[in-house]
């Protein structure tokens, strides 16, 4: 366990360091195309805790990403605060909205929850588009300041890449620890059987609310970082339902039941289009056309995975040791004895 943990993290950190050089020199793709994948990782890892572990679906994750981004951007441009302050503000506003939204919504069961989150996602997106004086309407907000640490300004693509991916690594670590903590066990218990979880003394609603707020806060943080550390501008289209569905696709493709599965899914869904786009035959095509083809492919991949492999690539149907050190099977419905 300990050894595999060290090995895994050496691999992670090593590949994060090496990846931009592979992309720039071997595949000759700009480092900027890697930025997006970093944000995808944060989003999918935060969502897998909610969907895979607690069994509570959210189809509106992009909304919280957007809330974080817009809050940070508005605070930075309208009030002139430095990004080092506006990012925490964006994260906190996201968490607060998560509390207000989560409290009523998490009382809903089964598909009503997915519908409510979906509709909230759409409502927030429409709000970004409509609230012109605040959010800049369809155009969005541009000329966002870069992060500045003392005299050091994080401006070059490579610096931004390392900032984003360091944050992503930190969030992976956090979520991984959380999923192995007693709290993570409680989440799995809720996923397996809410009534049974209630019977052994877990406050189901409170636990659900906690994980919802945690997940949403990470999404809002990712959004705030996105505002200051990506392309210097944000527009409502980036936070539409399509993004929520993309994140769901990552979680489904990578594996619903593990943090590393979500990372795998995010890397596949994030990097494949960039690599494909730079292959010769596609380069001649119109950019919007490529986007439409990509979207259609996401849809097809999602349908295929749900039908044929609902557990994802890194399915966890394998032997593991449980808390007592006994061998057990970790499956869709939580922990079963072999």
């Amino acid at each position, binding site marked *: 366990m300990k050894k595999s943990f060290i090995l895994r993290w050496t691999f992670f950190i090593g590949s994060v360091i090496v990846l931009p050089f592979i992309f720039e020199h071997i595949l000759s793709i700009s480092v900027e195309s890697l930025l997006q994948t970093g944000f995808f990782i944060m989003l999918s890892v935060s969502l897998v805790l909610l969907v895979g572990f607690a069994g509570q*679906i959210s189809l509106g994750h992009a909304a919280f990403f957007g809330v974080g981004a817009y809050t940070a951007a508005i605070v930075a441009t309208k009030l002139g605060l430095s990004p080092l302050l506006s990012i925490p503000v964006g994260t906190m506003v996201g968490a607060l909205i998560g509390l207000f939204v989560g409290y009523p919504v998490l009382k809903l069961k089964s*598909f*009503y929850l997915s*519908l409510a989150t979906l509709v909230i996602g*759409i409502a927030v997106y429409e709000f970004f588009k409509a*609230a012109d004086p605040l959010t800049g309407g369809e155009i969005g907000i541009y000329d966002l300041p870069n992060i500045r640490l003392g005299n050091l300004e994080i401006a070059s693509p490579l610096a931004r890449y390392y900032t984003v991916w360091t944050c992503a690594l930190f969030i992976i670590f956090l979520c991984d620890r959380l999923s192995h903590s007693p709290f993570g066990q409680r989440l799995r218990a809720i996923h397996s059987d809410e009534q049974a979880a209630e019977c052994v003394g877990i406050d189901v609603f409170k636990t659900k609310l906690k994980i919802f707020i945690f997940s949403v806060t990470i999404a809002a943080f990712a959004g705030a970082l996105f505002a200051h550390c990506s392309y210097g501008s944000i527009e409502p289209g980036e936070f539409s339902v399509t993004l929520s569905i993309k994140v769901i696709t990552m979680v489904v493709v990578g594996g619903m039941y593990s943090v590393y599965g979500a990372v795998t899914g995010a890397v596949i869904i994030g990097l494949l289009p960039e690599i494909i786009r730079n292959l010769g035959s596609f380069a001649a095509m119109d950019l*919007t056309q490529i986007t439409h083809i990509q979207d259609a492919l996401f849809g097809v991949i999602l349908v295929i995975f749900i039908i044929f492999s609902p557990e994802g690539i890194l399915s966890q149907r394998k032997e593991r040791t449980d808390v007592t050190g006994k061998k057990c099977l970790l499956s869709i419905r939580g922990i079963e004895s072999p």
Partner: protein
Amino acid sequence: MVILDILIHGVGWASIYAVIAIGFSLIFSASRIINLAQGEFVMLGGLFGFTLYSLKIPLFFIPPLSGLLVAIVGITMDKLALSPASGASPTSLIIITIAISIILKSIAALVWGPTSFRIPGFFENRTFMISTGIIINPQYLFIMVICAASILSLTLFLKKTKLGRSLRACSMDPVGARIVGISPEKMRTLSFATGGALAGLIGALIAPIFYASSECGLNLGLKGFCAAVLGGMGSMPGAIAGGFIIGLAEAMGASVASSYKDVIAPVLMIVVLYFRPEGIVGGRS
């Protein structure tokens, strides 16, 4: 006088939302699937309508023909994606229908491009004034009539014909329906065909006032879906009531702050969902 204007446009849109909501409800009651691609069906109806129009098909035949074409799309979707996934959790099925809506939207954007298309109305350039300042497009009245007619004929189909009764039996109890020789799978396909036909019809009908484009599906689907949830998923009177509440609330909201028009329906739906998850009319939980 503004009130009259709001009322006529409000009722026009209300009947449109009601028909879209009925599509949702019909598919849900027959198959327990919430088909979030319904808005894309409406969008396809409008775009098929435009293609038929450019093929010089008489205006009168365009809505029924688009309905037929979209019904075929609905059947294909059911056969290709939903029947292999039968038995998956409700949430997985919802995600599948969203994935299909994305696929349909992207394909439509590839085929028809980003432009908006308009089909001329049946009573082109014959707008009339009731009094000064109030101009009414007769297409709205026409849409109301057709919506009422299609709701009526659907009710007759469900109540009077053998096929319609089997569909309702299946929505009450799939196992019981199977025992008396009705195939729930066939009924699911039938519900997708009917839902698709309704959506295609309405899509072609609103193209003269709404401009069909590959982007318009999400919004229309959302309103119809909110109407269906508001009234109570799976209930036809509920869908009609929900459509009217949303249509009128939106028309009133638009006269106050038009840019926030599209936020009204989701907010209304969430409020109702919180206090009465089974909807205003729906009694079954």
